[in-house]
């Protein structure tokens, strides 16, 4: 146990300040400001509008699992998305935001719609990755509905294959920073 504590102390705090976005691509005015400022603004919005906690339900509606890996990374010690009051929840009934990946497979179409309906209003939907944004490598076929917006209303798309944790964080901040 002593070794464990010693390892924890040696590891220290790695959580990083969020840098400025490297290039345009998210599509909101806030990207020009330092993200740290937006982060603080986000925290303010989350505190005010969401009583200190923004709850995200992630839904894989047909992805290759690449996006899931990067969404998971948001919770690692470098990004630590919870410091902005943002956290992932197990049920759509607890969620403010649905983070949806994949070209929506036809076999997931009904499940995605039900998940959307189970999410209380007001709610936001973020389509994650090239597949979620436009169908990506898979497009529309006998087995795939393509973009998430072909199935449920989408408020923001974050492209990338997969989008990096930084791109995901910037997308999240920009959506919540909207007036």
């Amino acid at each position, binding site marked *: 146990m002593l*070794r464990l504590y010693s390892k924890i102390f040696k590891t220290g705090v790695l959580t990083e300040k969020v840098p400025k976005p490297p290039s345009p691509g998210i599509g909101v005015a806030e990207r020009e400001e330092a993200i740290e400022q937006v982060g603080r603004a986000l925290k303010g919005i989350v505190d005010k509008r969401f009583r200190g906690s923004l709850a995200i339900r992630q839904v894989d*509606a047909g992805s290759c699992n690449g996006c899931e890996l990067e*969404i998971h990374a948001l919770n690692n*010690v470098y990004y630590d998305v919870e410091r902005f009051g943002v956290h992932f929840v197990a*049920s759509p009934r607890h969620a403010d935001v649905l983070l949806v990946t994949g070209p929506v497979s036809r*076999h997931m179409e*009904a499940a995605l719609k039900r998940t959307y309906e189970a999410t209380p209003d007001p709610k936001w939907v973020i389509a994650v990755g090239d597949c979620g944004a436009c169908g990506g490598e898979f497009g529309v076929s006998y087995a795939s509905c393509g973009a998430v917006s072909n199935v449920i209303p989408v408020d923001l798309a974050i492209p990338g294959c997969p989008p990096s944790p930084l791109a995901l964080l910037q997308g999240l901040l920009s959506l919540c920073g909207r007036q």
Partner: protein
Amino acid sequence: MSVDSLTSLRLKLAAQDIDNVSSVHRFLSPAMVLQLDARDWGKAAEITKSEHWRWAGIWAEDRGAELVVNACLEHQGSYLILRTLLTPERAILPSQAPHYWAADRPERHIRDLFGIHFEGHPDPRRWIRHQAWDENVFPLRKHFAAAGTPPGETPPDRDYPFLKAEGASVYEIPVGPVHAGIIEPGHFRFQAVGETVLHLEERLGYVHKGIEKLAEGRDPAGLARLAGRVSGDTTVGHTWAACMAMERAAGIEIPLRAAYLRGLLAERERVINHLWDLGALCNDVGFAFGHYQFGRLREQWLRENQLHFGHRLLMDRIVPGGVAVDLGPDAAGTMGRSIAALRGELDELLTILDSNSSLEDRFLGAGVLSTELAAALGALGFVGRSSGQTFDVRRDAPYAPYDRLTFNVPTESQGDVASRFWVRYKELRVGLRLLEALLEGLPEGMVAVPWQIPPEGAEGFAAVEGWRGEILCYVRFGAGNAIARYWPRDPSIVNWPALEKLVLGNIVPDFPVCNKSVNGSYSGHDL
């Protein structure tokens, strides 16, 4: 393949009156092809089973006037492909599932997508088909348009006939397809008494994206991109397999430097996924320290991927003819330092984890897959190797660059969650040594050769060891450089049934860690 083992098999087949076997083709090298009459299909499986061949996969192909069915078997590193021809009017074949457990779901997959009826198959239920297309149309027949028919809204698959268990105090738990975590969709149906799992049935197919159909008509570069998205965590493995199959079909030899770079990419993918799984296994038993430590190390390696290869998950780095990225002169030095650093970190973490009795309590004896069952299922990768199955394509059917390297393949025989944890840990260590050897031996030269359009009908077969285990791939070209058939086989397809068995008798709350210890890909299974 040794000529002896094939001759011996042919004699065995002849002794069972299976003598209408056409000559051995070499065009699917390194695999050999034996063509049989359809009526002998089941009996041939019975014989190969008795000769200890492992059943590895099946694929079919619509060539207009005929349907071609291929079953892939492996024995001591030799691959054999049994092939038979059917007419579309009489698409009936004896099932191999009564002889090989592993054939169960793949045959149902083919029935759903090609309409080939497997006589004597023990399970008449559909598998990959939910409701996205009608029962009597078959998406992998050539005349089926990839776009399908205007579908309207696809109804949920609510009437799948799960096995039922009834009795006092037996209850059922349906889980999914939308799970509680950040994870792919699938459905699990548990029957339990108290906390004990009596029965588990998997229902997959939720992320079927029509990959095999989408591949038709693509050019080699397009197929490589698609292969990189069969399963996002195995993007290197599947792209490598697809490119190797295409290169063999086209008769292209990649430069040795490209082979070494592919090896570097594959071993880095192995390291990253094993780090992630070790962390996730700790997380599933509430050991947050392990989760964050392994997650931290993984993130460092993802960033190094970005630095040296331009992509965190290494997508689209392998291309037909070679690789799309070369290493700078300083890369070997910085990578060498991070390998040494990771090794030191793992030493330190090993000491901490090994002395943690609560971790031991949850891992030891949980989710046991016996050696016998693993052999019967043909379990692959770390799942097989934790249950006494020693097979590793890199060592047993080696390809460049592994044919130039020596390394050990860690195995365990207890078959529990702890074994699968430690086999991964040991594979990490082996992976680090392999990375050093690859960096040290990295030859000079080109990283790709130009693509040559293969003749119409050219076929290629490949087996590579992805981080989950053996990945198989078959490719056939049509006219004008266009893919006519792409068949990827992820090891998950073989390993998913193992989860149904190893969870029996465990408590429901241990299911997540049992599931994670196998870590099957849903996308790679559903295709």
